[in-house]
């Protein structure tokens, strides 16, 4: 009997699937909330909830309250599809996801097929962090919008910066052995070769994703190669352990990274004592001195114990609201049409636009280094006392890359 009750209590909410009256705008947040990726997923969830609160304080979208519905995908593509189905059953027309390009690919595929097979019930997929270029190139979809710069754009911006730094002569590439790491590596080779033919690539390493406990052998290789700079797309523990091993061995190089600011990254840099030797390419950082961004950052930090890692999420939510207002509708097809080609004043100031051809958002990019702060840098990270310092700003036009997308519009 007890078991029956338990099964019923678990099964019923799932089987019910009652379509809710649309008094709120529900956004399904499909990201890991348990397992290895949970630390990242949780920060994202709280950021989105904070943004929903911000919109609601201003009266919501078209007078409707915004609600973020957390759906745990355990970083598993299949699980994500189940969660997406569940979200759609619950009357959700907008989903957002960011962690893992494999998940993003599966979701984009799913949403496209679903909309194709269920006209009138379309669902939009807002991607805030999955950076695999194929999503806005070969496998682009009308129903997918990406606010994060894809990894090629980031590399374009990063190499535009490296072009101006003559000290970079010997570069070592170390990346995780999966689609994202591989695109970082191949683009770094191609773009560095075109912009700085004098730079030598002295090593090119791919290591398995999240499987290495000891990076000392890799560091030994970097050291033996005589590199002065390392470019890496590593994130999470692969980043932290890499830096720790480097600091242990006393490796002195500049680090050009994508995700140094991710959860645990700043702590690792501080522990390794790499003062202003680690650079990150991102669409925004604290300490840029942009007034409205500073207010937002302070409010977020007052509420949670983390800083804003996803300025792109701010752009996403604010642009979504703007697009819905512009379309005067919450119908996903109309919102999608309004988003296409939309110009937008981004979080840290400056112009961004959602390119119509491939639904990739373009925005100013910032290169920043992490280390000791001066008066100009009020914010630190993860209570380390160190903070981000701007090294260079790459404005929107210098980040634009062509696309191979052949968009199929409904």
């Amino acid at each position: 009997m007890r078991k029956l009750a338990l099964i019923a209590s678990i099964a019923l909410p799932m089987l019910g699937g009652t379509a809710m009256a649309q008094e709120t705008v529900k956004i399904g947040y499909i990201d890991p909330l348990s397992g290895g990726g949970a630390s990242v997923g949780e920060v994202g969830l709280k950021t989105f909830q904070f943004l929903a609160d911000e919109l609601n304080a201003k009266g919501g979208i078209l007078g409707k309250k915004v609600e973020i519905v957390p759906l745990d995908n355990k970083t598993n593509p299949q699980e994500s599809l189940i969660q997406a189905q569940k979200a759609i059953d619950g009357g959700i027309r907008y989903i957002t996801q960011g962690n893992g390009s494999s998940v993003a690919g599966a979701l984009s595929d799913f949403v496209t097929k679903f909309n194709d097979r269920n006209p009138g019930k379309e669902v939009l997929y807002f991607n805030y962090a999955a950076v695999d270029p194929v999503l806005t190139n070969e496998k682009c979809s009308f129903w997918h919008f990406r606010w994060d710069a894809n990894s090629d754009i980031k590399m374009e911006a990063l190499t535009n910066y490296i072009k101006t730094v003559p000290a970079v002569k010997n570069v070592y590439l170390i990346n995780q052995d999966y689609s994202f790491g591989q695109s970082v590596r191949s683009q770094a080779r191609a773009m560095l070769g075109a912009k700085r033919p004098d730079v030598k690539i002295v090593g090119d390493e791919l290591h398995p994703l999240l499987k290495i406990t000891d990076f000392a052998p890799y560091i030994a290789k970097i050291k033996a190669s005589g590199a002065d700079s390392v470019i890496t797309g590593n994130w999470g523990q692969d980043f932290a352990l890499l830096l720790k091993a480097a600091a242990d061995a006393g490796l002195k190089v500049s680090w050009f990274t994508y995700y140094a600011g991710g959860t645990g990254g700043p702590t690792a840099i501080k522990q390794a004592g790499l003062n202003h030797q680690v650079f990150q390419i991102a669409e925004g950082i604290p300490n840029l001195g942009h007034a409205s961004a500073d207010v937002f950052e302070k409010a977020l930090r007052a509420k949670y114990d983390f800083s804003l890692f996803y300025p792109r999420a701010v752009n996403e939510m604010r642009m979504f609201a703007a697009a819905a207002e512009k379309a005067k509708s919450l119908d996903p097809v109309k919102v999608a049409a309004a988003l296409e080609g939309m110009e937008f004043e981004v979080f840290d100031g400056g112009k961004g636009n959602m390119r119509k051809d491939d639904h990739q958002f373009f925005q100013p990019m910032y290169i920043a280094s992490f280390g000791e702060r001066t008066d100009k840098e009020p914010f630190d990270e993860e209570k380390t006392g160190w903070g981000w310092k701007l090294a260079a700003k790459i404005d929107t036009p210098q980040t634009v890359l062509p696309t191979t997308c052949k968009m199929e519009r409904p």
Partner: protein
Amino acid sequence: MSDALAKIPATIAPPRPAASDRLKFYGIWIGAALALLVLPKLFSSGGSLTTFSLIGISIIFSLSYNILLGQTGMLSFGHAVYYGLGGFLAIHAINIIARNKFAIPLPLVPLVGGAAGLVFAMLLGWVSTRRSGTAFAMISLGVAELVASSALILRTFFGGEAGVSANRTKVLRLFDWSFGPQIQIYYLVAAWTLIAVIAMYALTRTPLGRMCNAVRDNPERVQFVGYDPHIIRYIAFCFSGLFAGIAGALAAINFEIANSAYLGAVQSGTVLFATYIGGVGFFIGPIVGAIFVTLLSLGLSDLTQVWQLYFGLIFIAVVMFAPGGITGLLMMHRPLLKGGTLSRVLPSYLVAFVPTLAMITGLMLAIETTVHFTVNPGEDSHIKAFGIPFDAANPAIWAVAAVLLIGGFIIARKTWARVAGSWDDALTAAREKGVAA
């Protein structure tokens, strides 16, 4: 002498089942088929259809695993290898069929997956089935890691991290079924589930199935009667791979994507869980386990943030208190039912139910309140756990939780003892009535 020999077969062969028994036997299968037909009429939302499809897939997969664990006594940590390879081959098959416009309809694609599972089981099984026990378990662990890792290396076949996707509506249509809507996929999975379950049930009734049991129980004696346990384990392994491949192919059709997660340790672990929790000793055990674990893994994360903790605690509880799995627990009541003494234990169950429930509620209350303060500090203290709202900031919550937990435990312990006592009485009474336990 020859007379005596002639009589032996008559005594060994089981008696022909009576007409009523046969009716009952076939009735179960027909009833199951009818239930599968009616189910989507009762729950028609896309999510519930997906849930049913996943349960069907999980049933095939768990039963295939039980050919190893329950019937032949082989503990495998890498059964997902055959499931995953079946899935990948099926996805590639769909793509190839669609590209070349072969006249093969989607319902036949699981055969490709089954063949893939069978072939790889034949290739990898020979060395690993030489031994059973820990050696077999560890080889399966190693092979699983190797295959899962090579999925990320052999990119052109496995598609790397992103996996390989396909569009199932692009293959030849049968009777105007596009297989786009989930309901059609549900019927496809349901049909295959029924076929696979019947086939695997039939397998347990063959001499091979019996020899598998013998190998599990005493491989030495099997050798004495002239069979090679290695060969029997190998054949069982191949059958198991075949059905796992079918399950994988169905999963690939359902999701229209196959990726390295299909082959991974999580998948292998889940099937082991489902099979054992359901009960390895009975044919329907894995079916029950598959339903239970699939619902649990899909639904629990909606109800509570710390579902992993409950997941772990539930498994610990089942392993400790229901060693025969859920089915074993239910089957314990069969002799009582037959002996008509079931009514003697029911009152003590009811008595035990109240304090046990109180204890569990107290535990859940304590966990959820703790979670609120450590994981979500500063958020609204009016939280919901398992759909029940309460105010975590209220200090009385702690007192209530403590009283329920401790008080419940003290009283529940006494009632458990009563349950055990009345259980023994009922069983003795049933035995006296001539029912074999």
